[in-house]
């Protein structure tokens, strides 16, 4: 992986994160973005399937010449809830 300090895509990805953070439909949860060459990869979890679907809209609009890969996951909240016991 290229050194972040010398990789111009690192700054681009950071600007993308800022815009994503301002985007109400797509900003959560725990989203992240990586840019490799002309590929944009969206990572992390989204609160709903709707949120997951719209997440690539921001990078597609900002970087129309890049290929956007949506690798986000839907946040899974269905796991059973164990009880942690404090004596």
């Amino acid at each position, binding site marked *: 992986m290229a050194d972040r300090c010398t990789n111009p895509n690192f700054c681009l990805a950071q600007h993308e994160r800022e815009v994503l953070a301002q985007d*109400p439909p797509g900003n959560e*949860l725990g989203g992240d973005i990586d840019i490799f060459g002309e590929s944009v990869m969206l990572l992390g979890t989204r*609160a709903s399937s*709707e949120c997951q679907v719209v997440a690539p809209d921001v990078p597609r609009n900002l970087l129309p010449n890049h290929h956007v890969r949506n690798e986000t996951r839907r946040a899974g*909240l269905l796991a059973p*809830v164990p009880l942690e*016991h*404090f004596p």
Partner: protein
Amino acid sequence: MIRIAAMADVHFGADAVGSLRPHLTHLSERADLLLVAGDLTRVGDPTEAMLLLDELREVRVPIVAVLGNHDHHTDRAAGITAALRGAGIHVLEGGSVTLDIDGVRVGIAGVKGFGGGFLGACASDFGEPEMRAFVGHTKERAARLEAALRRLECDLRIALLHYAPVADTLKGERLEIYPFLGSYLLAEAIDRAGADLALHGHAHAGSEQGTTPGGVPVRNVAQPVLRRTLAIYGFDDAGNRGPIDLPPPPELAGWRYLAH
């Protein structure tokens, strides 16, 4: 046994309607109260809070919440607080509430908290007004938390925050962003005043379990960390841990910091 359900970082919005309710409908069979450690809304819109309230309407146990950074994003935190309080939720920001649960007095002191970092890698209350304001905000919130905890007269004492008081529960996050996820000043406040449990959210990629330097259990209940709707913590014996004998913060705190 007192059973405390806790969750954080719900980030509720219009597209999430119906997703939470099924997990909370029968909560009273599993828990005695529900604590929400901030980021109830996605962008701090009171209409998002109203949607969340509709989702919570079947919850039959007391609910206590603090707001998170998302709830402040559009500068309408007061509207969110009013909506939540109107529905009977206790919203704390430097305050406390004591609930009687089957004869056990459960005290909750709550504050959003703020960032600043942890020992060895902290922002310093020095230099530009913006930096002093940043650290000053954390100091002020930590002081409020300590005062609120000290005021509590109860059997079980809980500190409820959005930002993390310890680095333990940030493991998994990138080290570079720790100063934006919490502050050791919050842990100091908790240890000085004493608590049985501290809960927080905010760090989505962090870890669930940690401990303050004084030994108070800390739990990160952000939903992405839990990978479920909420966590439940049970207390057999309400301990009411007393204050821990820590030295007061020094007048000149420069020794704490690596850089100015």
